Protein backbone atom coordinates (compact mmCIF):
# COMPACT_ATOMS: atom_id res chain seq x y z
CA UNK A 1 0.00 0.00 0.00
CA UNK A 2 1.23 3.45 -0.87
CA UNK A 3 2.41 5.55 2.02
CA UNK A 4 0.09 8.40 3.03
CA UNK A 5 3.06 10.70 2.53
CA UNK A 6 3.00 9.96 -1.19
CA UNK A 7 0.85 12.38 -3.17
CA UNK A 8 -0.86 11.78 -6.48
CA UNK A 9 -0.20 14.32 -9.23
CA UNK A 10 -2.22 14.67 -12.41
CA UNK A 11 -1.82 16.40 -15.75
CA UNK A 12 -4.04 19.16 -14.35
CA UNK A 13 -1.97 20.01 -11.28
CA UNK A 14 1.54 18.81 -12.17
CA UNK A 15 3.08 22.20 -13.08
CA UNK A 16 1.71 23.82 -9.95
CA UNK A 17 2.76 20.96 -7.64
CA UNK A 18 6.43 20.85 -8.64
CA UNK A 19 6.89 24.63 -8.40
CA UNK A 20 8.15 24.78 -4.82
CA UNK A 21 10.80 22.85 -2.96
CA UNK A 22 12.31 19.50 -3.87
CA UNK A 23 9.85 17.09 -5.44
CA UNK A 24 10.41 13.45 -6.44
CA UNK A 25 7.89 12.10 -8.96
CA UNK A 26 7.44 8.40 -9.73
CA UNK A 27 5.92 7.72 -13.16
CA UNK A 28 4.19 4.37 -13.13
CA UNK A 29 1.32 2.25 -14.43
CA UNK A 30 -0.73 -0.60 -13.01
CA UNK A 31 0.60 -3.03 -15.65
CA UNK A 32 4.28 -2.22 -15.11
CA UNK A 33 6.03 -4.99 -13.15
CA UNK A 34 9.29 -3.13 -12.43
CA UNK A 35 7.21 -0.21 -11.14
CA UNK A 36 5.95 -2.51 -8.40
CA UNK A 37 9.56 -3.15 -7.39
CA UNK A 38 10.45 0.50 -6.97
CA UNK A 39 7.15 1.51 -5.32
CA UNK A 40 8.11 0.33 -1.79
CA UNK A 41 11.42 2.19 -2.07
CA UNK A 42 9.58 5.37 -3.07
CA UNK A 43 7.25 4.87 -0.10
CA UNK A 44 10.21 4.50 2.28
CA UNK A 45 11.86 7.64 0.90
CA UNK A 46 8.60 9.53 1.45
CA UNK A 47 8.61 8.42 5.10
CA UNK A 48 12.26 9.15 5.72
CA UNK A 49 12.30 12.54 4.00
CA UNK A 50 8.91 13.61 5.32
CA UNK A 51 8.86 17.42 5.57
CA UNK A 52 11.99 17.89 3.46
CA UNK A 53 10.92 16.27 0.21
CA UNK A 54 7.59 16.02 -1.56
CA UNK A 55 7.07 12.57 -3.05
CA UNK A 56 4.38 11.96 -5.64
CA UNK A 57 3.18 9.46 -8.21
CA UNK A 58 1.81 9.98 -11.71
CA UNK A 59 -0.23 7.19 -13.29
CA UNK A 60 0.75 7.49 -16.94
CA UNK A 61 -2.42 5.78 -18.22
CA UNK A 62 -4.59 8.48 -16.69
CA UNK A 63 -2.14 11.34 -17.28
CA UNK A 64 -0.51 11.04 -20.71
CA UNK A 65 0.41 14.73 -21.09
CA UNK A 66 2.99 15.00 -18.33
CA UNK A 67 5.16 12.01 -19.35
CA UNK A 68 5.05 13.23 -22.93
CA UNK A 69 6.10 16.75 -21.87
CA UNK A 70 9.14 15.40 -20.03
CA UNK A 71 9.87 12.80 -22.75
CA UNK A 72 9.31 9.87 -20.43
CA UNK A 73 9.31 6.82 -22.70
CA UNK A 74 9.92 4.07 -20.25
CA UNK A 75 8.76 3.30 -16.75
CA UNK A 76 9.57 3.31 -13.96
CA UNK A 77 11.09 6.76 -14.36
CA UNK A 78 11.73 9.05 -11.42
CA UNK A 79 12.10 12.79 -11.96
CA UNK A 80 13.46 15.12 -9.32
CA UNK A 81 12.45 18.78 -9.44
CA UNK A 82 13.78 21.69 -7.42
CA UNK A 83 11.62 24.83 -7.43
CA UNK A 84 10.09 23.76 -10.72
CA UNK A 85 13.35 22.90 -12.51
CA UNK A 86 14.05 19.32 -13.56
CA UNK A 87 17.30 18.30 -11.84
CA UNK A 88 17.54 14.52 -12.11
CA UNK A 89 16.10 11.72 -14.24
CA UNK A 90 16.36 8.10 -13.13
CA UNK A 91 15.19 5.48 -15.59
CA UNK A 92 14.58 1.96 -14.40
CA UNK A 93 15.48 0.43 -11.06
CA UNK A 94 17.81 1.91 -8.50
CA UNK A 95 18.67 1.09 -4.89
CA UNK A 96 17.30 3.16 -2.05
CA UNK A 97 20.80 4.19 -0.98
CA UNK A 98 21.68 5.58 -4.38
CA UNK A 99 18.36 7.41 -4.63
CA UNK A 100 18.91 8.89 -1.18
CA UNK A 101 22.37 10.11 -2.20
CA UNK A 102 20.88 11.75 -5.27
CA UNK A 103 18.12 13.43 -3.23
CA UNK A 104 20.62 14.66 -0.60
CA UNK A 105 22.52 16.60 -3.30
CA UNK A 106 19.48 18.81 -3.85
CA UNK A 107 18.24 19.38 -0.31
Amino acid sequence: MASENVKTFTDANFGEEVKNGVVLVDFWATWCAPCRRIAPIVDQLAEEYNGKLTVAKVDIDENPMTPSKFMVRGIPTLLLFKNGDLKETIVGLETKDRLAQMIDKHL
Partner: protein
Amino acid sequence: MSTVSSHTRSVIIIGSGPAGLTAALYASRANLKPLLIEGIEAGGQLMLTTLVENYPGFSAGVMGPDLMAQMRAQAEHFGAEILQGDVSAVQLSKRPFTVHVDQSVYTAEALIIATGASAKWLDLGVDKKLSGRGVSTCATCDGFFFKGLPVAVVGGGDTAMEEAIYLSKLATSVTVIHRRDTLRASKVMQDKAMSTPNISFMWNTEVVDIKDLDQGKVTSLVLRDTRTGEKSELAVDGVFIGIGHTPNTALFKGQLAMHDNGYLRTHDGSRTSVPGVFAAGDVQDHIYRQAVTAAGSGCMAAIDAERFLSGTLHESTHETVEARL
Protein backbone atom coordinates in the same frame (compact mmCIF):
# COMPACT_ATOMS: atom_id res chain seq x y z
CA MET B 1 9.93 -5.19 4.55
CA SER B 2 11.12 -7.89 6.89
CA THR B 3 13.30 -7.02 9.85
CA VAL B 4 16.59 -8.83 10.19
CA SER B 5 17.17 -10.02 13.72
CA SER B 6 20.64 -11.45 13.36
CA HIS B 7 23.43 -10.57 10.97
CA THR B 8 25.03 -14.02 11.15
CA ARG B 9 23.47 -16.86 9.21
CA SER B 10 24.32 -20.39 8.26
CA VAL B 11 23.16 -19.73 4.69
CA ILE B 12 22.75 -16.55 2.70
CA ILE B 13 21.14 -16.68 -0.72
CA ILE B 14 21.74 -13.83 -3.14
CA GLY B 15 19.01 -13.38 -5.73
CA SER B 16 15.25 -13.84 -5.82
CA GLY B 17 14.42 -15.47 -9.14
CA PRO B 18 13.32 -19.12 -9.41
CA ALA B 19 16.81 -20.37 -8.41
CA GLY B 20 17.14 -18.19 -5.30
CA LEU B 21 13.59 -18.74 -4.10
CA THR B 22 13.74 -22.50 -4.63
CA ALA B 23 17.04 -22.59 -2.73
CA ALA B 24 15.32 -20.59 0.04
CA LEU B 25 12.40 -23.04 0.08
CA TYR B 26 14.66 -26.09 0.46
CA ALA B 27 17.05 -24.42 2.90
CA SER B 28 14.20 -23.24 5.12
CA ARG B 29 12.59 -26.69 5.11
CA ALA B 30 15.99 -28.06 6.18
CA ASN B 31 15.84 -25.66 9.15
CA LEU B 32 18.81 -23.62 7.96
CA LYS B 33 16.91 -20.35 8.49
CA PRO B 34 18.23 -18.83 5.27
CA LEU B 35 18.44 -15.14 4.61
CA LEU B 36 17.67 -14.25 1.01
CA ILE B 37 18.82 -10.89 -0.32
CA GLU B 38 16.51 -10.13 -3.18
CA GLY B 39 18.51 -7.60 -5.21
CA ILE B 40 17.47 -4.68 -7.31
CA GLU B 41 15.71 -6.80 -9.94
CA ALA B 42 13.60 -8.61 -7.36
CA GLY B 43 11.82 -11.66 -8.74
CA GLY B 44 14.22 -11.86 -11.66
CA GLN B 45 13.54 -12.00 -15.36
CA LEU B 46 10.14 -13.65 -15.00
CA MET B 47 8.83 -10.40 -13.52
CA LEU B 48 9.09 -8.90 -17.00
CA THR B 49 7.28 -11.69 -18.80
CA THR B 50 3.60 -12.22 -19.38
CA LEU B 51 2.21 -15.73 -19.80
CA VAL B 52 4.68 -18.53 -19.02
CA GLU B 53 3.46 -21.65 -20.80
CA ASN B 54 6.34 -24.01 -20.12
CA TYR B 55 6.51 -24.15 -16.33
CA PRO B 56 5.33 -27.65 -15.37
CA GLY B 57 2.19 -27.90 -13.31
CA PHE B 58 0.31 -25.05 -14.97
CA SER B 59 -1.62 -26.53 -17.89
CA ALA B 60 -3.15 -23.16 -18.81
CA GLY B 61 0.09 -21.26 -18.25
CA VAL B 62 0.87 -18.87 -15.42
CA MET B 63 1.72 -15.17 -15.43
CA GLY B 64 5.44 -14.70 -14.69
CA PRO B 65 4.92 -12.21 -11.82
CA ASP B 66 2.22 -14.47 -10.29
CA LEU B 67 4.55 -17.47 -10.39
CA MET B 68 7.25 -15.48 -8.62
CA ALA B 69 4.79 -14.24 -5.98
CA GLN B 70 3.82 -17.87 -5.31
CA MET B 71 7.46 -19.01 -5.05
CA ARG B 72 8.19 -16.18 -2.69
CA ALA B 73 5.17 -16.92 -0.48
CA GLN B 74 6.10 -20.62 -0.43
CA ALA B 75 9.67 -19.87 0.72
CA GLU B 76 8.43 -17.43 3.37
CA HIS B 77 5.83 -19.95 4.55
CA PHE B 78 8.68 -22.22 5.68
CA GLY B 79 10.56 -19.42 7.39
CA ALA B 80 12.91 -18.01 4.78
CA GLU B 81 13.69 -14.40 5.56
CA ILE B 82 13.72 -12.07 2.56
CA LEU B 83 15.68 -8.85 2.70
CA GLN B 84 15.01 -6.00 0.32
CA GLY B 85 18.39 -4.70 -0.74
CA ASP B 86 21.19 -5.00 -3.22
CA VAL B 87 24.52 -6.65 -2.45
CA SER B 88 27.37 -4.20 -3.05
CA ALA B 89 30.35 -6.45 -2.18
CA VAL B 90 31.20 -9.95 -1.02
CA GLN B 91 34.33 -11.40 0.55
CA LEU B 92 34.85 -15.08 -0.17
CA SER B 93 38.50 -15.61 0.77
CA LYS B 94 37.69 -16.99 4.22
CA ARG B 95 34.75 -18.31 6.17
CA PRO B 96 32.45 -17.00 7.39
CA PHE B 97 31.88 -15.20 4.10
CA THR B 98 30.83 -11.57 4.33
CA VAL B 99 28.10 -9.95 2.30
CA HIS B 100 27.64 -6.18 2.20
CA VAL B 101 24.13 -4.86 1.66
CA ASP B 102 23.87 -1.09 1.55
CA GLN B 103 25.28 -0.07 4.96
CA SER B 104 24.97 -3.48 6.64
CA VAL B 105 27.27 -6.48 6.71
CA TYR B 106 26.03 -10.06 6.95
CA THR B 107 28.08 -13.19 7.47
CA ALA B 108 27.37 -16.79 6.53
CA GLU B 109 29.06 -20.18 6.59
CA ALA B 110 27.57 -21.07 3.21
CA LEU B 111 26.54 -18.90 0.32
CA ILE B 112 24.21 -19.61 -2.58
CA ILE B 113 24.63 -17.32 -5.54
CA ALA B 114 21.54 -16.95 -7.71
CA THR B 115 22.07 -13.47 -9.11
CA GLY B 116 20.88 -14.44 -12.57
CA ALA B 117 21.45 -12.56 -15.76
CA SER B 118 20.27 -9.19 -17.04
CA ALA B 119 19.37 -7.95 -20.48
CA LYS B 120 22.37 -7.11 -22.60
CA TRP B 121 22.78 -3.67 -24.15
CA LEU B 122 24.30 -2.93 -27.54
CA ASP B 123 27.58 -1.57 -26.23
CA LEU B 124 27.24 1.62 -28.25
CA GLY B 125 27.19 3.92 -25.23
CA VAL B 126 24.39 5.89 -26.79
CA ASP B 127 21.86 3.12 -26.16
CA LYS B 128 22.21 3.44 -22.38
CA LYS B 129 22.09 7.24 -22.60
CA LEU B 130 18.79 7.03 -24.45
CA SER B 131 17.39 4.39 -22.10
CA GLY B 132 13.88 5.51 -21.14
CA ARG B 133 14.01 7.92 -24.08
CA GLY B 134 13.11 5.38 -26.72
CA VAL B 135 15.66 2.64 -26.06
CA SER B 136 14.31 -0.22 -23.97
CA THR B 137 15.04 -3.83 -23.06
CA CYS B 138 11.47 -4.48 -21.91
CA ALA B 139 8.60 -4.35 -24.38
CA THR B 140 5.94 -5.12 -21.80
CA CYS B 141 7.17 -2.19 -19.68
CA ASP B 142 7.67 0.45 -22.32
CA GLY B 143 5.66 -0.63 -25.37
CA PHE B 144 2.81 1.59 -24.18
CA PHE B 145 4.74 4.73 -25.16
CA PHE B 146 4.91 3.67 -28.79
CA LYS B 147 1.22 3.32 -29.61
CA GLY B 148 0.80 4.28 -33.25
CA LEU B 149 4.53 4.80 -33.82
CA PRO B 150 7.15 2.80 -35.75
CA VAL B 151 9.63 0.78 -33.67
CA ALA B 152 12.51 -1.62 -34.19
CA VAL B 153 13.55 -4.76 -32.33
CA VAL B 154 17.19 -5.84 -32.33
CA GLY B 155 17.94 -9.57 -32.08
CA GLY B 156 16.96 -12.94 -33.49
CA GLY B 157 16.20 -15.11 -30.47
CA ASP B 158 13.05 -15.89 -28.52
CA THR B 159 13.30 -12.68 -26.48
CA ALA B 160 13.42 -10.55 -29.62
CA MET B 161 10.49 -12.42 -31.20
CA GLU B 162 8.42 -12.13 -28.04
CA GLU B 163 9.09 -8.39 -27.95
CA ALA B 164 8.26 -7.98 -31.66
CA ILE B 165 4.96 -9.85 -31.30
CA TYR B 166 3.98 -7.86 -28.22
CA LEU B 167 4.89 -4.55 -29.88
CA SER B 168 3.07 -5.39 -33.13
CA LYS B 169 -0.21 -4.86 -31.26
CA LEU B 170 0.77 -1.31 -30.28
CA ALA B 171 3.18 0.08 -32.87
CA THR B 172 2.33 0.84 -36.48
CA SER B 173 5.26 -1.26 -37.66
CA VAL B 174 7.93 -3.41 -36.08
CA THR B 175 11.22 -3.91 -37.91
CA VAL B 176 13.31 -6.79 -36.59
CA ILE B 177 17.01 -6.12 -37.12
CA HIS B 178 19.18 -9.20 -37.03
CA ARG B 179 22.89 -9.68 -37.69
CA ARG B 180 22.43 -13.04 -39.38
CA ASP B 181 20.16 -14.39 -42.10
CA THR B 182 18.41 -16.92 -39.86
CA LEU B 183 16.70 -16.65 -36.50
CA ARG B 184 17.83 -18.40 -33.34
CA ALA B 185 14.29 -18.27 -31.97
CA SER B 186 12.22 -21.42 -31.50
CA LYS B 187 10.06 -22.52 -34.43
CA VAL B 188 6.83 -21.56 -32.63
CA MET B 189 8.03 -18.00 -32.02
CA GLN B 190 9.46 -17.64 -35.54
CA ASP B 191 6.19 -18.72 -37.14
CA LYS B 192 4.21 -16.36 -34.92
CA ALA B 193 6.44 -13.39 -35.76
CA MET B 194 6.68 -14.11 -39.47
CA SER B 195 2.90 -14.42 -39.85
CA THR B 196 2.26 -11.06 -38.14
CA PRO B 197 1.50 -8.54 -40.94
CA ASN B 198 3.19 -5.47 -39.43
CA ILE B 199 6.44 -7.24 -38.46
CA SER B 200 9.17 -7.07 -41.09
CA PHE B 201 12.75 -8.35 -41.02
CA MET B 202 16.07 -6.80 -41.94
CA TRP B 203 18.62 -9.60 -42.22
CA ASN B 204 22.43 -9.33 -42.03
CA THR B 205 22.07 -5.92 -40.46
CA GLU B 206 23.54 -4.40 -37.33
CA VAL B 207 22.87 -1.18 -35.45
CA VAL B 208 25.92 1.11 -35.44
CA ASP B 209 24.33 4.25 -33.98
CA ILE B 210 21.10 5.51 -32.46
CA LYS B 211 19.97 9.09 -33.10
CA ASP B 212 19.37 11.61 -31.66
CA LEU B 213 21.25 12.27 -28.44
CA ASP B 214 20.95 16.05 -28.91
CA GLN B 215 17.17 15.86 -28.97
CA GLY B 216 17.24 13.43 -26.05
CA LYS B 217 15.06 10.88 -27.81
CA VAL B 218 15.20 8.18 -30.45
CA THR B 219 14.51 9.44 -33.96
CA SER B 220 16.32 6.88 -36.11
CA LEU B 221 18.81 4.03 -36.23
CA VAL B 222 21.97 3.98 -38.30
CA LEU B 223 22.32 0.48 -39.73
CA ARG B 224 25.09 -1.38 -41.48
CA ASP B 225 24.79 -4.32 -43.84
CA THR B 226 27.15 -6.94 -42.38
CA ARG B 227 28.02 -8.33 -45.86
CA THR B 228 28.46 -5.16 -47.93
CA GLY B 229 29.24 -2.66 -45.18
CA GLU B 230 26.66 -0.34 -46.69
CA LYS B 231 25.01 2.05 -44.24
CA SER B 232 21.38 3.06 -44.08
CA GLU B 233 19.05 4.88 -41.74
CA LEU B 234 15.71 3.71 -40.38
CA ALA B 235 13.33 6.23 -38.82
CA VAL B 236 11.80 4.85 -35.61
CA ASP B 237 10.56 6.28 -32.33
CA GLY B 238 11.62 3.33 -30.27
CA VAL B 239 14.14 0.52 -30.33
CA PHE B 240 13.85 -2.60 -28.20
CA ILE B 241 16.97 -4.61 -27.55
CA GLY B 242 16.60 -8.38 -27.31
CA ILE B 243 20.11 -9.64 -27.95
CA GLY B 244 20.43 -11.88 -24.95
CA HIS B 245 21.63 -11.67 -21.41
CA THR B 246 24.78 -11.08 -19.47
CA PRO B 247 25.40 -12.84 -16.12
CA ASN B 248 25.39 -10.75 -12.96
CA THR B 249 28.83 -11.80 -11.78
CA ALA B 250 30.68 -8.47 -11.38
CA LEU B 251 30.57 -8.96 -7.59
CA PHE B 252 32.55 -12.17 -7.84
CA LYS B 253 35.30 -11.17 -10.24
CA GLY B 254 38.67 -12.39 -9.01
CA GLN B 255 36.98 -14.47 -6.29
CA LEU B 256 35.21 -17.26 -8.17
CA ALA B 257 36.18 -19.13 -11.32
CA MET B 258 34.23 -18.04 -14.36
CA HIS B 259 33.89 -19.05 -17.98
CA ASP B 260 35.20 -16.62 -20.61
CA ASN B 261 31.68 -15.27 -21.06
CA GLY B 262 31.46 -14.31 -17.37
CA TYR B 263 29.17 -17.15 -16.23
CA LEU B 264 30.20 -18.85 -12.97
CA ARG B 265 31.86 -22.24 -13.27
CA THR B 266 30.24 -25.02 -11.26
CA HIS B 267 31.23 -28.65 -10.77
CA ASP B 268 29.81 -31.71 -8.99
CA GLY B 269 26.35 -30.21 -8.79
CA SER B 270 26.28 -26.59 -7.72
CA ARG B 271 29.81 -26.17 -6.30
CA THR B 272 31.85 -23.17 -7.33
CA SER B 273 35.63 -22.83 -7.07
CA VAL B 274 35.31 -21.84 -3.39
CA PRO B 275 34.15 -24.55 -0.95
CA GLY B 276 30.94 -23.42 0.73
CA VAL B 277 29.91 -21.18 -2.14
CA PHE B 278 27.27 -22.66 -4.43
CA ALA B 279 25.69 -21.26 -7.56
CA ALA B 280 22.30 -21.83 -9.14
CA GLY B 281 20.22 -20.56 -12.03
CA ASP B 282 21.19 -18.37 -14.94
CA VAL B 283 24.31 -17.01 -13.25
CA GLN B 284 25.96 -20.39 -13.95
CA ASP B 285 23.88 -21.55 -16.92
CA HIS B 286 24.29 -20.04 -20.36
CA ILE B 287 22.78 -23.06 -22.09
CA TYR B 288 19.30 -23.90 -20.78
CA ARG B 289 18.23 -20.67 -19.01
CA GLN B 290 14.72 -21.85 -18.18
CA ALA B 291 12.61 -21.09 -15.12
CA VAL B 292 12.34 -24.81 -14.41
CA THR B 293 16.07 -25.50 -14.76
CA ALA B 294 16.83 -22.50 -12.54
CA ALA B 295 14.42 -23.79 -9.90
CA GLY B 296 15.96 -27.27 -10.16
CA SER B 297 19.47 -25.97 -9.71
CA GLY B 298 18.32 -23.84 -6.74
CA CYS B 299 17.13 -27.04 -5.09
CA MET B 300 20.51 -28.67 -5.82
CA ALA B 301 22.39 -25.73 -4.31
CA ALA B 302 20.32 -25.84 -1.11
CA ILE B 303 20.93 -29.59 -0.71
CA ASP B 304 24.66 -29.11 -1.40
CA ALA B 305 24.83 -26.25 1.13
CA GLU B 306 23.02 -28.31 3.76
CA ARG B 307 25.48 -31.19 3.27
CA PHE B 308 28.43 -28.84 3.32
CA LEU B 309 27.27 -27.37 6.64
CA SER B 310 26.75 -30.80 8.18
CA GLY B 311 30.12 -32.00 6.91
CA THR B 312 28.62 -34.67 4.69
CA LEU B 313 29.35 -33.13 1.30
CA HIS B 314 31.77 -35.55 -0.26
CA GLU B 315 34.30 -34.94 -2.96
CA SER B 316 32.48 -37.20 -5.35
CA THR B 317 28.74 -37.12 -5.73
CA HIS B 318 28.07 -40.66 -6.86
CA GLU B 319 25.80 -41.32 -3.91
CA THR B 320 22.07 -41.16 -4.46
CA VAL B 321 20.21 -38.14 -3.21
CA GLU B 322 17.28 -39.41 -1.20
CA ALA B 323 13.88 -38.01 -1.94
CA ARG B 324 12.90 -35.07 0.18
CA LEU B 325 9.20 -34.95 0.92
